[in-house]
């Protein structure tokens, strides 16, 4: 008698299994196929084009009623299996029991519903089967409908793009830092996000969903940060879970999926499993290629042929019309791995190939995936590519050796990209002038005024010359920031501004970075430039800061830290002094020192004590003195008219006002100020970045002093009559420095580069510019004028940042 084969689940894996089986041995089994969906097998992958309206259901059916009839399959569609009785070898459905000799579980996966309130409201759908698609299309009928897609992976983005095609207003909420984080690296994720946004899809990364709101129907999604996104439809695409309930209840060995051996056999000798519900060698799969391999192996196993499933490399392509994206293998970085990165910012192309021992182990491509199959083949074959290494990234068609054009970035800029910020000169104007005969820098300066002011755009202007004139113009060598890029600091600042680059991956992509996440030289600089240019949009990145700024304390040579509370204008009180003394006692501080900046330093503090000490000092009303930052350090003052018989103005009061205004701000390098009450200059104002000397008729402001490795006296900026003006000039000067100086240039170095006259024009003479500078400074301070100690002394921070991850000393001692 023919053996009875029962299959649970009429999906892609079991569909392929039946094809393979009938091919090998048409009459080996009497097959009964149960399917929960009221239809036979169709190409689930193509649900996205169906949702987008590019295909209809009939186009994607793979096995129709005729096919099942011809092959003698008993179809039980629309009939979910409720239970497996392994002892009696029965499967149970609502209609009764069916016996089997061999059983195959092919139940696939189910959409993972994130566990938040409201996830069961009508209007919340998964993206798994035809019914989900029908529900979504229904919702898309309503005019001006809003859809929120939770999950920015393959499924979520296909749903988002399709719903956008259907005319819905779509927002994607993605938990991780960049889209498709499992398949793409941040750079490619960034390009993808740009493309989707260009189509009108809103993308929010690092988005934590708190609840889905609505009474009888969804109407909004609430985020952890309080943002609310209106929604008529919520698509859950935050992941899938292998459908293992039946197997679990039946007592089969189940981990994340139903555990099978190489022959697809479960822990029961008569029960097999295939498809997404399976876990093989600790891996579960979510793409069809490996499932088809499994189906083939299982067909052989079922007829007694020896066969074994071997985990294959799987590749991913996003099926969104017009988006070219490909990812395969392991694209993580690592030592012993080498990467080849190619970026063409002009055409929005990014390619990365990861090599180990001269073999390809992974690649990510965006924008141009023409060579993906060629590379994938090389990855699978594991062949040694040393011979073609240098040209590998250019694909099989590559002739030999022509290097990429370093000027591509500039050539790709649109005509209205601003090159010279001082004079508002765009690329188009420069190109026109070159066309009219201004073929060198001097001529361009004279005719267009480009780079004629602060000069920081000189590099870019030269590159425009080079890209316009070709070989006839040779760019004088400029020093790039570091080995990761060819750009200079000045080029980079200008690109960030003119191209509205607001994240690190954006800068690295558009400016052709050669490494995937920079290095210790460029990252801190980039972090500063981004936060200075986009205070509201850019989120400061602690991991791109040097240890002192990350830990808000100065690291000492023995790895301990120093703690230094702010003393506004160098003034303190008995209570503050007592609190400092108490902290020194309590935390066993080995050294207490009065500094040159008129405050008190506690040296030799252990890292784990920092937050506790800060909390104590906060308690006494003190805040961080930022003695560790490239930012405002101190404002030294003398006692002025309050006590000194020579005093002409309230120098202490002005110093305190300035410090309260400026504290917390980040600057290219440290900034120190001083205010003296008369020309005797007891506060030593003439060797500070900004020094103010009070006289009877007002305030003399001078800038660009230093007393470090170099000793420099300040130069006079202006003399003003009122305290208010003195404050405005100081703020405007510091903001100009923040906006234009190179990272790690002290103010005096920057002033020497741009010239004091250029500074005066903007800060002293042009009143509108002065006001605008002050306004921009204040905007930035609305974010950064805060005490980092208070922020980091919280319990959450203490647990996550200041303590050791684990303490193994106890275990190791056993």
């Amino acid at each position, binding site marked *: 008698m023919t053996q009875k084969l029962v299959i649970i689940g009429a999906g892609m894996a079991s569909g392929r299994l039946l094809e393979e089986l009938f091919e090998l041995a048409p009459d080996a089994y009497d097959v009964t196929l149960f399917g929960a969906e009221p239809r036979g097998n169709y190409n689930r992958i193509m649900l996205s084009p169906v949702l987008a309206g590019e295909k209809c259901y009939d186009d994607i059916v793979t096995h129709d009623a005729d096919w099942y009839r011809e092959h003698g399959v008993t179809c039980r569609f629309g009939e979910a299996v409720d239970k497996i009785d392994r002892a009696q070898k029965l499967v149970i459905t609502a209609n009764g029991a069916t016996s089997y000799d061999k059983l195959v579980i092919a139940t696939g996966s189910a959409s993972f519903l994130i566990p938040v309130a409201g996830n069961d409201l009508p209007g919340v759908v998964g993206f798994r089967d035809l019914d989900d698609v029908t529900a979504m299309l229904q919702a898309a009928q309503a005019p001006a409908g809003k859809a929120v897609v939770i999950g920015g992976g393959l499924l979520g983005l296909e749903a988002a793009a399709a719903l956008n095609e259907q005319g819905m207003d779509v927002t994607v909420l993605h938990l991780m830092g960049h889209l498709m984080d499992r398949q793409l690296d941040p750079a490619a994720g960034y390009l993808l996000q740009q493309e989707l946004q260009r189509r009108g899809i809103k993308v929010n990364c690092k988005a934590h969903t708190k609840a889905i709101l609505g009474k009888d129907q969804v109407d909004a999604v609430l985020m952890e940060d309080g943002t609310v996104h209106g929604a008529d439809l919520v698509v859950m695409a935050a992941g899938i879970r292998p459908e293992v309930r039946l197997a679990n209840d039946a007592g089969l060995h189940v981990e994340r999926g139903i555990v099978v051996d190489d022959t697809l056999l479960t822990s029961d000798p008569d029960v097999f499993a295939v498809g997404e519900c399976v876990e093989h060698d600790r891996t579960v799969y979510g793409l069809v290629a490996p499932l088809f391999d499994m189906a083939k192996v299982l067909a052989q196993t079922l007829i007694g042929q020896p066969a074994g499933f071997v985990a294959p490399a799987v590749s991913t392509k996003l099926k969104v019309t017009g988006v070219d994206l490909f990812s395969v293998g392991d694209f993580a*970085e690592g030592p012993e791995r080498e990467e080849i990165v190619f970026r063409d910012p002009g055409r929005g192309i990014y390619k990365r190939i990861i090599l180990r021992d001269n073999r390809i182990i992974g690649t990510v491509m965006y924008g141009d995936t023409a060579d993906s199959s060629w590379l994938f083949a090389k990855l699978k074959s594991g062949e040694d590519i040393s011979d073609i290494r240098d040209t590998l990234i250019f694909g099989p068609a590559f002739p030999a050796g022509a290097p990429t054009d370093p000027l591509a970035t500039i050539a790709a800029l649109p005509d209205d990209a601003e090159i010279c910020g001082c004079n508002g000169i765009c690329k188009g104007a420069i190109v026109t002038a070159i066309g009219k005969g201004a073929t060198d820098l001097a001529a361009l300066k004279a005719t267009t005024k480009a780079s004629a002011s602060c000069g920081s755009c000189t590099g870019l202007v030269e590159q425009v010359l080079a890209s316009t004139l070709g070989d006839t113009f040779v760019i004088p060598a400029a020093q790039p920031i570091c080995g990761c890029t060819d750009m200079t600091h000045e080029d980079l600042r200008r690109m960030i501004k003119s191209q509205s680059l607001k994240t690190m991956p954006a800068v690295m992509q558009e400016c052709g970075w050669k490494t995937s996440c920079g290095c210790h030289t460029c990252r801190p600089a980039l972090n500063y430039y981004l936060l200075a240019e986009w205070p509201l949009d850019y989120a400061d990145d602690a*991991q791109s800061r040097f240890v002192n700024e990350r830990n808000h304390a100065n690291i000492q040579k023995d790895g301990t830290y120093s703690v230094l509370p702010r003393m506004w204008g160098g003034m303190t009180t008995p209570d503050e002094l007592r609190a400092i003394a108490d902290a020194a006692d309590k935390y066993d501080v080995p050294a207490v020192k009065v500094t040159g900046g008129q405050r008190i330093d506690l040296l030799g503090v252990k890292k784990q004590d920092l937050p506790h000490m800060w909390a104590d000092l906060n308690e006494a009303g003190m805040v961080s003195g930022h003695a560790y930052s490239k930012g405002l350090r101190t404002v030294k003052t003398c006692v002025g008219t309050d006590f000194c018989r020579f005093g002409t103005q309230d120098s202490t009061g002005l110093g305190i006002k300035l410090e309260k205004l400026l504290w917390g701000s980040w600057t290219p390098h440290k900034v120190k100020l001083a205010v003296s009450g008369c020309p005797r200059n007891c506060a030593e104002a003439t060797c500070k970045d900004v020094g103010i000397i009070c006289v009877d008729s007002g305030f003399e402001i001078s800038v660009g002093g230093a007393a470090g490795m170099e000793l420099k006296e300040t130069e006079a900026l202006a003399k003003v009559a009122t305290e208010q003006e003195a404050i405005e000039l100081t703020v405007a000067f510091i903001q100009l420095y923040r906006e234009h100086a190179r990272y790690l240039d002290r103010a005096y170095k920057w002033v020497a580069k741009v010239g004091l006259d250029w500074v005066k024009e903007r800060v002293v003479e042009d009143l509108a510019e002065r006001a605008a500078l002050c306004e921009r400074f204040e905007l930035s301070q609305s974010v950064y004028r805060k005490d980092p100690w208070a922020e980091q002394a919280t319990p959450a921070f203490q647990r996550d940042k200041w303590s050791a*991850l684990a303490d193994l000393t106890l275990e*190791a001692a056993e």
Partner: protein
Amino acid sequence: MRNWIDIAGLNDIPKRGARVVKTTLGCVAIFRTDDDKVYAIDDTCPHKKGPLSEGIVHGASVTCPLHNWVFDLETGMAQGEDVGQVATFDTQVLNGRILLEASRLAARSAA
């Protein structure tokens, strides 16, 4: 013998960051790279004992916070002109948990 110890969740360490595990032989720094690889090396810089866990992490390297020596996280070798090496320990990430191979830590303490 391999001795895997579950020390923390992956998310307990920031991307491009590090934290330390205390052992009887001093601190071991556990690094998490931008693409979620995890490495463990001795926390102490062979140059002048800088705490490597406080350095800037880039690619699969870390830059010592004191004098900018750069170490390869996989081999523990100093890069470029500088000469030196720190001990490395095996790690793996399983279901979001970081496991540290601690047999060498135990062996060294027993000796």
